[in-house]
């Protein structure tokens, strides 16, 4: 019974293996939705492709690197102006995108010359930039262009540049998750160890799996600075290419997003013996716990306690103001994967919010293990949810607010349900203590929006059932 076949899925009954309704007393050892499996064609899934998992999520964050996309124009156009990851150098990463603009003749005769020319042009046009990622896309992978050979040739002719190749066409894997994996593994195998960082502290970490969404990285950096911990590399929020080549010199890998970047942490452990420590950077209790764990590793517990005390003194009263008002709010989380388990318990503990439904686009088994362990009974846990399922789930759980992407947000607006951007945030950062107050504020403002009540009102007279429900 706890695996659920929704009414809209009666023609695709295999979907019931992906939807779990947790019952009191059960845990992830009893039931676990199937995940990281191929999407059923034509279901209006929310998933993206492997290429975007590499370029848009991880590579495109870098602040000093040309992102050369070897393929037709759409792959570049579509992964530009879709993220909010600023940098401290004027957002070079968000202003530009590069494409080899493949045409039919290159598909027929091969695109390597086109790529070589495009790479050289890009460096010529932007002479201050010396680093580049090159990505294959569906057609260039299919025709078998050897992008590594081209990169090697350019590097031999231009000794001051360095190029990283990422071969993960859109059709690889079942979702963007495959792109995270390919980029992680190729990066450590090809680039880590090439640059020696200047060590300025006795305590050094890599902070892995945080992409500076609305300044998350920059906010957490203020904590590391106050703790006297040197971050050798952020993977990849506000990061420079060469910082990521020196990851081998950190004493500890602190991992936030285990899904998109756990791979490189594991490899750093395997290849360089650097231990991995997973933390949650969203939420007061979690952030405090994370700081305590990191400080305990270095034996600087007092510094950690001091920071936590200062932050609590500054932000906890504001958080509590929102907690009082958000208590009992029913929230749905429809995002990529890890935020389900990062958020479900932190909003419950810190804000008294009840998460009633969660859908993951690209989470794996371990993500569902974590989220079911942390999440509540009576909550739906969905892998690769699609549009009709969302409508049905909304009817079942009646959420007050949904944390999801802007497109789904526009859809649920018509149902008078406010959305908060669960990917790029409304007004972040959301990480850290201050960040979680921002999240609480955005959730409160969404829920308190007077327009929702007006939307439910039928001015032709009488109250609608929705209006009564809203009251």
């Amino acid at each position, binding site marked *: 019974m706890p695996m659920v076949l929704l009414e809209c899925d009666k023609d695709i009954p295999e979907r019931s293996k992906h939807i779990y309704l947790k019952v009191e007393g059960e845990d992830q050892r009893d039931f676990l939705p199937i995940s990281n499996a191929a999407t059923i064609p034509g279901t209006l899934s929310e998933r993206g492709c492997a290429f975007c998992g590499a370029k848009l999520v991880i590579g495109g964050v870098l602040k000093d690197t040309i992102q050369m996309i070897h393929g037709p124009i759409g792959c570049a156009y579509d992964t530009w102006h879709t993220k909010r990851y600023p940098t401290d150098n004027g957002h070079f990463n968000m202003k530009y995108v590069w494409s080899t603009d493949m045409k039919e003749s290159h598909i027929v005769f091969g695109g390597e010359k086109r790529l070589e020319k495009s790479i050289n042009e890009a460096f010529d046009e932007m002479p201050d930039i010396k680093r580049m990622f090159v990505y294959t896309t*569906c057609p260039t992978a299919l025709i078998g262009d050897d992008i590594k050979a081209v990169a090697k040739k350019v590097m031999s002719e231009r000794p001051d540049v360095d190029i990283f190749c990422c071969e993960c066409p859109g059709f690889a894997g079942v979702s963007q998750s495959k792109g995270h994996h390919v980029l992680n593994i190729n990066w450590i195998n090809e680039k880590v160890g090439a640059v020696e960082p200047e060590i300025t502290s006795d305590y050094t970490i890599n902070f892995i799996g945080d992409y500076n969404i609305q300044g998350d990285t920059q906010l957490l950096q203020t904590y590391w600075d106050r703790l006297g911990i040197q971050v050798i590399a952020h993977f990849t929020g506000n990061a420079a290419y060469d910082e990521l080549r020196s990851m081998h010199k950190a004493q500890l890998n602190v991992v936030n997003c285990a899904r998109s970047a756990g791979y490189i942490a594991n490899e750093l452990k395997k290849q360089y013996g650097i231990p991995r420590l997973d933390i949650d950077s969203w939420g007061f209790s979690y952030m405090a716990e994370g700081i305590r764990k990191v400080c305990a590793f270095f034996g600087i517990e007092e510094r950690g306690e001091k920071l936590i005390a200062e932050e609590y003194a500054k932000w906890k009263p504001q958080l509590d103001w929102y907690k009082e008002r958000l208590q009992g709010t029913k929230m749905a989380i429809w995002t990529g994967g890890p935020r389900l388990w990062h958020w479900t318990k932190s909003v419950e503990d810190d804000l008294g919010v009840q998460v009633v439904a969660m859908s993951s686009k690209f989470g794996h088994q371990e993500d569902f293990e974590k989220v079911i362990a942390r999440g509540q009974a009576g909550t739906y846990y969905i892998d690769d949810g699609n549009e009709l399922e969302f409508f049905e789930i909304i009817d079942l759980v009646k959420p007050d607010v949904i944390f999801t992407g802007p497109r789904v947000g526009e859809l649920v607006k018509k149902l008078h349900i406010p959305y908060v951007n669960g990917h790029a945030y409304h007004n972040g950062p959301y990480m850290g203590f201050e960040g979680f107050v921002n999240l609480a504020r955005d959730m409160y403002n969404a829920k308190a929006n007077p327009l929702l009540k007006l939307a439910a009102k039928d001015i032709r007279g009488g109250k609608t059932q929705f209006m009564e429900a809203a009251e």
Partner: protein
Amino acid sequence: MGCEITTRDRAGVINPMYDCQPAGAQYAGIGLKDAIPLVHGGQGCSMFVRLLFAQHFKENFDVASTSLHEDSAVFGGHMRIQEGLLTLARRYPKLRIIPVITTCSTEVIGDDVEGNIKYAKDQIEKEFPGREIYIYAVHTPSFKSSQVGGYTECMLSTWKDIAKQKAEPTGKVNIFPGWVNPGDVVLLKHYLKEFGVEGDIFMDTEDFDSPMLPDKSIHTHGRTSVEDIKASTGALASISLARYEAASTVDYLKNSFGVPGHQISAPYGIANTDALLQKISEITGKPIPDSLVHERGIALDALQDLAHMFFANKKVALFGHPDLVIGLAEFCMEVELEPTLLLLGDDNTRYKKDPRILAMKDKVAWDMEVVCNADLWELEKRVKDPAKKFDLILGHSKGRYVAIDAKIPMARVGFPTFDRAGLYRHPTMGYRGAMLLGEQIANAMFTHMEYTREREWLLNTW
């Protein structure tokens, strides 16, 4: 003095102006009623395009994917087309049209899309006897043309599959505006109504601006129905307002069903709108109504306050869809703005021979450059060039940082305009569109004058 037509000479693109063909095909496809386009390719090919539409319209649109994975890349994506079509047919009982839009990957693999469609249609017929769903291939490999060509291709494929017989005469006029905003569609409908002329706008995207209602019903979808398309073959005439997006469908209706076709300049600016109204009058024999003469006068009255006081001698760079850019350049000249740089963003070789560009070439009294196959780096380089000077940028939101960094006022126009609120709701076409754009330009300049303290006191008494 004179106009030079150049072409981007770099191989690569830095900051593209247009998306790829499948994106354009999806835009045409969502204009259909009771339709869900099925994109045959990787999931990103539809996911990001849906996001793009959501950014521009602040609405959700349904587009499905065959979710091509590695096995399909090796063995072909046949089963995924069939399964995708059957899943859509089963779960969406009201569905009547499914354009199957190909992508670069599935064109390279060489899937027999037509054969798979036929197989799926047979299956659907068995499962749902008597149910008719129009399913057809739209071949849009991303390595050819651009979103402009993809839009055109989807329009033509749709008409070829649905409009197969000559319908009884309807007395209606078909208007094909090309890739425009709901605000333009509403304006064109208004014109027909004022004329007392029956007509259809293809695609009818009016509901791309859709309401929040007390009953929570969702109306965000195209309004162009199977019946509208079938009836278009019996129309009095077709008018194409977009040489690069609509002409081929108008030609199809002419060549296959004898519907007279008229290609006119996109109705941006006063004179181009005059030509549209005169054309409708000529086709229908009805006089241009007084109400539209009045609207024309209102627009002229508004623009007259701006032209020689604020717009004259201001140098403008324009980029975006070809018919929009060319039409807006003509509009600029009407209000004394000087279009000095026009950027057209794909490798269509016909732009160079466009009669409107050739006419401007004869007319301009200043240096003007038209860059074909351009990207926004071409814009940025020229804007940064100290030897050049631009007072205004007209284009879509993808060029926002060029304007922001160079501190040049920019009026957002075209698609997409996600960094300004509500623009899709307003027409750019017609008298009203010209007036609203003129005022938007003026207000962008005024705000700029204030922030830069550049003769902002001019406005103390205006």
